[in-house]
């Protein structure tokens, strides 16, 4: 009975998180279109309107102008378009690829803490717990492992499509992701060093990393680490300027050239889920998670209102980062393929190693810092 209750409660919790993430993805697409249009002095989507929203006097018009109903229209379009499967594809893998890439994108959010709640324990003391689907001790390792699984979706799509452009896109995607995975892994080592204290065992728990940033955020402590990780996230999510896998300009659509309707929608959602989860990981690691501001204790009370505010504060940081992703997209031109490789292997990897060694020496000299 106890087990069943646990199962149902956690099932509902998981469902809520996934639904929230999916709707954030839908609205990230809208944000992408809107912010892109603002940066280019355009208007962006402003025609879609749900019938019942049109009757609200002033707000209805405002919602239409910001394209509030656009995600619904986009989603329905993916659902109702004819699902064409080209004759020359390897069918099983062709269908498997988009599913795989969405699974990898959604799995990473299971270990992400996105807020905290407080419980009075037996000794009448307030104890803080993270709001997270699964508070793994190896949370960060789990994220690194799962997010690198995302490349399988892309490679499989490129290979199963059985035509030239997707194949090239798949090859580029695998080369790029593997190169930047390396730099990302090495870049994160100083974070473990920082959040672990002498004599303690676990430092990979994301909640502990957030707790260790109640003073200065890691962004201020380790700017180089943050910069390398940021560049690697851009590469890992296949966002411009690193859109080698898609390369709309030279590979038609890259790995998803042969995909249409809902299967393409899967890739699309996966890309944005990657972006949001990547932003969330960056916020957890370097922007202090839901901690208010460096050295300023949180102004919210230690009860359920505070819990909601921690989530809101965390999401505000994440949304800023999603905005930053889009902002960068319209600021930097795309890299050429060899430039991507050069940046990954010749610049970021040596820099990450040097950064790691520097912090290693620092922590060896000052173990109590």
């Amino acid at each position: 009975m106890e087990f069943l209750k646990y199962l149902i409660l956690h099932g509902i919790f998981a469902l809520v998180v996934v639904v929230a993430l999916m709707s954030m993805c839908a609205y990230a697409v809208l944000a992408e279109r809107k912010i892109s249009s603002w940066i280019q002095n355009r208007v962006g989507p402003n025609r879609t309107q749900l019938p019942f929203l049109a009757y609200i006097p002033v707000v209805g018009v405002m919602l239409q102008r910001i394209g509030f109903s656009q995600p619904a229209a986009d989603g329905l379009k993916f659902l109702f378009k004819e699902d064409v499967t080209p004759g020359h594809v390897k069918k099983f893998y062709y269908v498997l690829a988009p599913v795989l890439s969405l699974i990898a994108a959604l799995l990473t959010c299971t270990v992400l803490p996105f807020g905290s709640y407080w419980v009075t324990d037996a000794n009448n003391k307030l104890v803080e717990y993270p709001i997270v689907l699964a508070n793994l001790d190896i949370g960060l390792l789990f994220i690194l492992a799962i997010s690198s699984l995302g490349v399988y979706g892309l490679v499989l799509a490129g290979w199963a499509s059985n035509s030239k452009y997707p194949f090239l896109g798949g090859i580029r995607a695998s080369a790029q992701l593997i190169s930047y995975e390396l730099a990302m892994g090495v870049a994160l080592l100083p974070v473990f060093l920082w959040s672990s204290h002498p004599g303690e065992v676990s430092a990979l728990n994301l909640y502990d990393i957030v707790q260790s940033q109640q003073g200065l955020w890691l962004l201020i402590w380790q700017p180089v680490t943050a910069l390398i990780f940021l560049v690697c996230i851009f590469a890992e999510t296949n966002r411009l300027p690193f859109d080698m896998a898609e390369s709309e300009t030279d590979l038609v659509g890259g790995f998803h050239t042969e995909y249409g309707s809902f299967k393409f929608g899967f890739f699309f959602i996966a890309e944005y889920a990657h972006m949001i989860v990547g932003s969330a990981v960056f916020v957890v690691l370097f922007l202090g998670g839901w901690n208010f501001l460096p050295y300023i204790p949180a102004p919210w009370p230690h009860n359920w209102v505070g819990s909601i505010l921690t989530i809101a504060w965390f999401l505000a940081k994440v949304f800023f980062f999603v905005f930053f992703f889009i902002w960068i997209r319209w600021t930097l031109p795309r890299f050429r393929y060899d430039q991507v490789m050069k940046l990954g292997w010749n610049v970021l990897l040596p820099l990450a190693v040097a950064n790691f060694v520097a912090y290693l020496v620092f922590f060896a000299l000052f173990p109590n810092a």
Partner: protein
Amino acid sequence: MAKVLERKPLTFWERTYLPQILGGLKITFFNMFRRSETLEYPEQRPQLPKAYRGAPTLVKDPEGREKCVSCQLCEFVCPPKAIRITPGAIPFDAPTAHVEKAPKEFDINMLRCIYCGLCEEVCPEEAIWLQDVYSISGTSRGQLIHNKAKLYELGGTRPDQHRKWDKKLAAEKAQAEGGHH
């Protein structure tokens, strides 16, 4: 002698590209607050220049008389042969009977028209004008052949500076009354 440009070596920060990226971010950020250049088309229309060459139309003079006398010059000059005119006579009892001819049918095939404006240029009566009509659509080929009624509907009336036929009528009357010309 070739001028050798002296290039300063890049500083450390310039070689990291980071200040340049920050500068670019600044530019794109402030671009977001600029007025959008978009014209929201069906509601907002572009300001057309005065001599805009849109679809050819037939016009009437301020008295409502149709100016075309079906001389067929436009039909002959039209490079893609988009115009087809069937001439007709003006009945003797009409007030403008002295003009003698008017088109019975006047078709312009908008699928063939190339908007060159030669018809307007060649017309001795200033009856055909390329006006500011630019969004022409139809659901069949037949709808895109503008007939006489449609052409007059699009054309409307235009001010007439010459009053050519009024002067001719006056001259004829004067002659009939025994004057000299």
